[in-house]
Every structure is written in C-alpha cells, then in structure tokens.
C-alpha cells in the first residue's frame, strides 16, 4: 500500500515540476510580448479563473455542457447498443444496415451543424443532437465488434449444456461483448465531448463552448483560457469515469 502511495506521490511530483516549467516559460513569453489580450500572464489567468469559479459562472456552464453530454451518451447508447447487438447476431441484418451506417459515418457530427441549425435553431437541442450523432457511430461499431469477436467456444459450451438461444444471448454474448462495448464508450465520450465544444461555440446560448466564444468577443483572454482549461478538466474527468466503469464492470478484461 505504501509503495503505491509513494509511486503516486512521485509521479505527482514529476507532473507538478513539469507543469511548473511550462508555466514558467509561458510567463516569460507573456512578459516579453507584453500584450495582455494576446497572451496574459499566468497569475492574471489564475485570477480570472478564481473569479469565474467564485461566482459559479464557470461551474454553471460546465454543468450544462456535462448535462448535455450525459443525455447524448445515454441517447446514443440506447440507440446504438441494441442496433449493434442485432447487427452482430444476425449477419443478414448487418448486411442490410451496415452500408447505410458506413455512408453516414464519415460525415462528422460537426458537418451536420448547419443543417441541424436550420432544423433545431440555436438552443439545447442542437448540441445534444450533434453529440448524440457523434457518439452513435463508435458505440455501434464497438458493439458489433464485441459481439462478433465473442469466442465461439463460449457459445458452444453453453449450447452443449442445453442453454436456450435467448439465454445464450443474455448470459454469454452480452457479458463477453461488454469489454469491447466499454472501450467503444470511451471513444464515444471523447468524440462527443469534442463535438460539444464545436456545437456550443456555434449554436448554443450556454455551456463551456459558448463561454469560450463569449469572452473572446469581449477580448477577455484570461477568461477564455479559464474556460478552455475547464473543458480540458471535464474531458479528463469523463474519460477517467469511463475507465473506472471499465475496471469496475469488466475487471477480467486487460486494462487499457
């Protein structure tokens, strides 16, 4: 236990040291360019961040963006997982549906923004639509892959025990496909989070992406940077969250 703690403390130390170097270089360049709009110094940014945090504006927008992502991932999963299961279990069904998916997949969620703006207008629905679309494809493909790569022998073993087909799907195929599904979920979350920024920047009246753009128009760079940093932090937390889900629900799968 102590050795793990020491290891974590050690790597935290390296992290702080490296970031300190980075901040130092930033500070020097900021002083040299002497343009507070172009590149504010670290303390100014920190000050702005604290200010935004104190009046909760930063957290307010973070919560909104996060909420949109939770809704999008849920929607995307509800659509993509059953579809992926059906495709993985029935080659015929896959052959019918797959080309349509493969045609739509290269059209990124972001390319949908103008059309979606027309359909939904500026508001909550737009980011959720874009994010759901973005997360949908990796989750479908990951589910299909997970189902297809289930070890044939696991299914055969159940058959030789006389287990009925439906139970095989619920008690063998789904648990065996779960690791792949959760990996795909990680990708979906990442793509979805990227999409939220783009969608909010262009087409939403709230959220972190909106905040970044709002303060840019006001030329308040320290606040812009604070929001950008928050985007990074939440992105990291979400990824860590899905990784935790991986470890918790599929402990037998190799850690990625």
């Amino acid at each position, binding site marked *: 236990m102590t050795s793990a703690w020491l290891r974590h403390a050690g790597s935290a130390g390296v992290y702080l040291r490296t970031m300190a170097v980075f901040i130092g270089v930033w500070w020097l360049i900021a002083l040299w360019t002497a343009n507070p709009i172009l590149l504010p110094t670290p303390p100014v940014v920190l000050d702005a961040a604290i200010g935004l945090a104190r009046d909760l504006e930063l957290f307010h927008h973070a919560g909104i963006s996060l909420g949109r992502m939770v809704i999008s991932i849920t929607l995307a999963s509800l659509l993509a997982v059953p579809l992926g299961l059906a495709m993985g279990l029935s080659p015929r069904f896959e052959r019918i549906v797959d080309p349509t998916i493969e045609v739509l997949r290269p059209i990124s969620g972001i390319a949908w923004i103008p059309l979606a703006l027309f359909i939904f207008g500026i508001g909550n629905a737009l980011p959720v639509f874009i994010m759901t679309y973005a997360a949908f494809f990796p989750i479908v493909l990951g589910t299909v892959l997970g189902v297809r790569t289930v*070890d044939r*022998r*696991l299914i*055969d*073993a*159940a*058959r*030789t*025990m*006389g*287990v*009925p087909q439906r*139970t095989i799907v619920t*008690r*063998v195929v789904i*648990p*065996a496909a*779960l690791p792949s599904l959760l990996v795909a979920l990680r990708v979906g979350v990442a793509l979805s989070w990227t999409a939220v920024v783009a969608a909010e920047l262009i087409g939403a009246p709230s959220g972190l992406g909106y905040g970044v753009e709002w303060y840019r128009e006001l030329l308040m760079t320290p606040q812009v940077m604070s929001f950008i940093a928050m985007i990074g932090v939440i992105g990291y937390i979400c990824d860590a969250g899905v990784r935790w889900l991986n470890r918790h629900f*599929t*402990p*037998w*799968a190799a850690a990625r």
Partner: protein
Amino acid sequence: MTATATMTAAASMNANAKLRLTDVTKRFQVRGAPDTVAVDNLTLDVRQGEFLVIVGPSGCGKTTVLNMLAGLDTPSSGTVAIDERVITAPGPDRGVMFQDYALYPWQTVWGNVEFGLRYGPAGNGLDDKARQERVRRTIDLVGLKGAERKYPNQLSGGMRQRTALARLMANEPDVLLMDEPLAALDAQTRIILQDELLRIWGQDRPAAERRTVVFITHAIDEAVFLADRIAVMTTHPGRLKAVIDVPLARPRGDATRALPEFQALTQHIWSLIRDEAYRATVA
C-alpha cells in the same frame, strides 16, 4: 489395411453401444477449392461406460468426430446416434470439455460450475437448495474446494481444467466428450490430472455405473494410460485405421506406466501413425 479396419470395427459392434457412428462422412466446402473431406466413411461404436480415446496426427478429423457426437456439427452423410437416437443438436446429456476450457471469465468458479444447472435444462426440477448442493458436491469431487470465489484468470492451468470438468459434470451427463483437455498443461501437471481424471470418472466402478467417455489426444502414452479402447485415425482424409483394446488392469496408476505391456502398446500404436506424423512435419 482397410480390411483389417472393417474387421476390427465389426468386432466392436455390439448391443450395448452407447454411441454409434455409422458410415459417417463429413465434407467441408471451401470457396474456390475442392471440398475437404474431414471424415471418410467412419463406423465406430462406443460402449456404455467405456473410456474410448481417439488418437491420430493433426488434421485427421478427430475434432470433427467429437463435434458431431456433441451435436455441434452434423454429418454430410451417415448417422450419429446416442442410445439408438439420432443426434441432431447439442445437449447436456453429452457434456463437452474444450481444449482451451472455454470458461466464462466474468463468472467465478462457482458461477461457471453452476451455469448449466442455472440456465439449462439439466437444472429443471432442482430448487435453489438442491442446485447449490450439487454444485458443492461437484466442486469437491474435482478437488476445487476453497476456490469457489476465484475467477478463471486467477487460476492455474490445472485448476481451470478442473473447473471446466466440474462445469460439465454438474449436469450429470451420460457421455463426456473431451477434446485434448490436457494439451495446454505442463508435463507434470498432465500426469497428475490424468490420475485425477480416472478417479473422477470412477475407474474402479463397473461399466454400467460409469459415464461413457470419448477423449481426444495427440499423446500416445496418455491414450494408453487412460483408455479401455483406442481408435487410431489417419489423415487426408480422416479414416479409422484400427481399434485397439487396452487390457491393462484398473485401477491404473503410476505403476501402470512402468509395465512392459504399456510400452508395447505405445510402440504398436506409434508404428501405426508414425509415417503420417512424419509426413505432416514436412508437408
């Protein structure tokens, strides 16, 4: 050669055949190439309560035969039957042990052993208590007491093999079909598990009370140690070359391996498949 095979096969046909393969042929269609004949006109009986081992070089169709007995595959022509009923589908009466155990990684040992009883017809008519009792008995039988809560990735190879065995034994099958179950183990563990296998099977009980076993292996000494009879197959296409009786007394143990009859039988069988095995290495 063929005449001898037919005579030996005919001699082994008798009334109390548990499993019967009659003129079984299995062809596999490969796109753009002529069909592969995995098994060619095979006729073989497996007697009730006997331990039959199928031996032969790689690719001689041993696994295909097992799959057909299991019902995972159907013959292109000919019939496969258990108790005179044609086999069309897999079922718990013919338990299968696969080469890499096929244990469910998300289930503990207990969960794996319980699986067939919980989700399959073998558990019908068992209430929770009776089911748990049977699982416990089976786990004790294979020597896994204390490891119930472990996951497969925490088990050694030998323990995984016991778990796989327990999983199929829990369903109390009439027939055990085993596809090279000991192949992945090191030599020392292999020997110990061969003894264990015979014990669990009940080698000192009369044939009527024992389960029927069809066992596939590459290792000739393993075959001679375990078997009542050995079916020798050849490859390209897979045919039955000979059926050899193994008259070594039961119960068998370490002493059996030292007997001169053991050596003689091993040599004899090796002589039957040696040429084919050599050709497989240079092909």
